[in-house]
């Protein structure tokens, strides 16, 4: 999973927190996170990981930095999502680590990411079985 973690808006923070929740709690046994700043800085380990393993990008806004960067440096992604297109982000929501209702919103996003992880893994397994 590659999240934009955009600092300038709340949806960037939501992308970060939701992704980390999936990695830490919801799908800890089958997901990893990639560091977008490191990826953009040219780290070949991050880029080759995204090439080798199915990658889901989670962007905060329609600028889609994570998606564009991954497609440019590693290839097509398995799935992509934009927080502001999936949910209504209240304009007063803080950019800082969410608590209360904002954390609940991050958790709902994490559940959606987890569903997509399951779909990607199921598709990957089907392809492997078909190749055998």
């Amino acid at each position, binding site marked *: 999973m590659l999240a934009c973690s955009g*600092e300038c808006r709340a949806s960037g923070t939501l992308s970060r927190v939701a992704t980390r929740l999936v990695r830490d709690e919801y799908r800890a046994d089958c997901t990893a996170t990639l560091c977008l700043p490191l990826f953009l*800085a040219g780290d070949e380990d991050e880029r080759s990981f995204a090439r080798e393993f199915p990658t889901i990008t989670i962007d905060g806004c329609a600028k889609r930095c994570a998606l564009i960067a991954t497609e440019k440096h590693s290839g097509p992604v398995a799935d992509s999502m934009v927080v502001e297109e999936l949910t209504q982000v209240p304009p007063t929501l803080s950019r800082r680590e969410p608590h209360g209702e904002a954390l609940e919103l991050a958790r709902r996003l994490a559940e959606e990411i987890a569903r997509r992880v399951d779909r990607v893994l199921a598709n990957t397994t089907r392809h492997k079985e078909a190749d055998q």
Partner: protein
Amino acid sequence: MKSEANGPQVYVIPCSGIGKPTASVAREATYRAIEDLRPGVADTLCLSLLTMGDAQTAAAVASTPCITVDGCPRLCARKNVELAGGQVCLALRVPDLLREHPGLTPAAVLEIGPQGEELADRLAAMLAHAIDGLVHKEDSVVGRS
């Protein structure tokens, strides 16, 4: 000369790496500095957007003093701001501060814990001080008291 009406006088740009608690400290300290300690004077912007070549973001860093805050020795914030043509006036690294205060190790990426909060507070104070220095330097150059 920048004023509050024209935009921030300093940009503080954290790396926001998702893999390390120290990157979360960098991010949290940035928000504390720009929202709590120096509101209206400093702001942040999206490092990813800058690195992707967004023209507006690049113009902002080229014309405004920047402070970068990196969570690890890879220095992604500093490197990417410099590559984009930004003027990095100060580059801070959370691991350096942690070496000075080894008891303030942040707990986790999402919940940095009480020690991480203390580290973020100290870093935010350093940032506020640095922001003041940059603002007063600019004021001196243009002859404002």
